[in-house]
């Protein structure tokens, strides 16, 4: 009941989906239609998981007066205010909700990762070392690609963009294909293991 039935559900639905791929019959497309229709109803409920665990973590922090609990108030307030604004004034263009998105979400999200530019610059100076022949090859290829993708490379000689294109289309292609085949097999294996009930960690819990 706790574990066996969910695993059976995954197995049966999974096998039907495997069959669906190979059987171009009306029955098979009806099955897909049915599943989609139900999935569309179930899907939106999943958001509860995310919201709940976020609220739970921060609520606990505030309750226990954990270090930096004050910031948890910031998170929860932002959560409540944004949600409320969305429900009160709607979510179309020109509403306060979109204003929050434009002036809070966008700058915060975009700046978070732009910090990495600084880290890369300092790592370029302090940590990217040609420690071995392999690392040297890597760095040389990287330098060519970096030059080849900007106009300065073109200005020095048209060979640099040409070599860049060649690197991307030949050795890079071979490398990425070799790796992608491994990844493709890995993904297939993971799907198989989930379907056959060998891999169950997604169910969570101990029993």
């Amino acid at each position, binding site marked *: 009941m706790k574990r066996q039935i969910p695993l059976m559900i995954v197995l049966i639905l999974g096998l039907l989906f495997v069959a669906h791929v*190979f059987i171009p019959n009306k029955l098979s497309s009806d099955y897909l239609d049915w599943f989609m229709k139900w999935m569309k109803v179930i899907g939106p409920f999943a958001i509860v998981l995310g919201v709940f665990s976020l609220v739970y973590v921060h609520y606990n922090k505030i309750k226990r007066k954990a270090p930096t609990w004050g910031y948890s108030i910031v998170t929860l307030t932002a959560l409540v205010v944004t949600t409320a604004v969305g429900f009160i004034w709607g979510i179309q263009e020109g509403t306060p909700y979109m204003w929050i998105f434009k002036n809070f979400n966008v700058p915060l999200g975009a700046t978070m990762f732009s910090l990495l530019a600084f880290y890369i610059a300092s790592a370029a100076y302090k940590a990217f070392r040609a420690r071995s022949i392999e690392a040297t090859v890597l760095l040389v290829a990287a330098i060519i690609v970096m030059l080849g993708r900007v106009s300065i490379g073109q200005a020095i000689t048209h060979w640099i963009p040409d070599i860049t294109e060649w690197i991307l289309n030949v050795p890079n292609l071979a490398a990425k294909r070799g790796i992608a085949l491994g990844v493709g097999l890995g993904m297939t294996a993971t799907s198989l293991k989930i379907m056959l009930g060998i891999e169950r*960690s997604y169910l969570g819990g101990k029993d």
Partner: protein
Amino acid sequence: METVTDKEEIEEIENRIALYSDYIEDKPEIVKKANQLKSDKERMKLLYKTHCTNIRSFKYYIRKTDGQGHFIDTPIYTAPNGEQYIFPKQNWFNNDEIITLIAVLLFAALVYFMIQAARKGKRLYIRPIAGIQEIDNAIGRATEMGRPILFVPGLSGISDVATLAGLAILSKVAKKAAEYDTRILVPCRDFIVLPIAQEIVKEAHYEAGRPDTYDKNSVFFITQAQFAFVAGVNGIMIREKTATNFYMGMFWAESLLMTETGSATGAIQIAGTDAVNQLPFFITTCDYTLIGEELYAASAYLSKQPLILGTLKAQDYMKLLIVVTVVLGTILSTVHLTFFMNWFPAK
């Protein structure tokens, strides 16, 4: 309801009735048939079915062109019974996918049986991975210097294969460290990974016969926030002067920040991840890097966990099969025999 009395009007209505009955008389069989049915619903059903058949029926002819606007058409194909419209038949199997079916069945069987074999404790050979030797050396170095070891089991959760592989390696590293009596620090980002890592390190100390040296606080949680976690790890590297840093598991954009600090403190750094986008950073900033599947192989080699080992072996044989097939296909296509290649899907 009103009664029509005007003569002209009556005439017009009668005309109209006559027109519609003619219309129905003349109509194809299907309308008549529908007319005989009792309920509206059944009538609609029949008409809809016919509609579906009709829109899916086709006429065919072949047009040959030279690609420059000149073309010739054949007459429309007529079946022996004189019918020009052709209705496609429902198939029970998509013949284009037969190669996919074979590949899937083969692979499924390999995965299943290899995992079973590994569970039964069958000896499955895995080649020695160069990095494993390095792991031993690095632990030895920390012992000589009398400084602690840092082990980061990735930032991801337990459902990630890389995290599992990282934890399997942790168990061996912790055991070695316990034998040499060297301190090991394990910062975690995930709530679920934390207790598992604690258990693993504790177990390792027992196995090494030194339960007394196990310190519960050496495996600890820092924070969930990505960059703040890294700031915490960097603080540890600088304060504790760790001699060896291991990064085994799943890493994201923050990888670079940790390894830069590690390289500044002069630690030996060994990394292993299947995050392809972070690998270049690890290769240029670490002394040794386990690339992609090497991480799984190393953990299977060290831990012999059936799930990891069996999957690895199954993928291994599949890869061998791919190599053989591709070499064969290439030889054939190079001598202009393309039938083999054409069995494989192009889209």
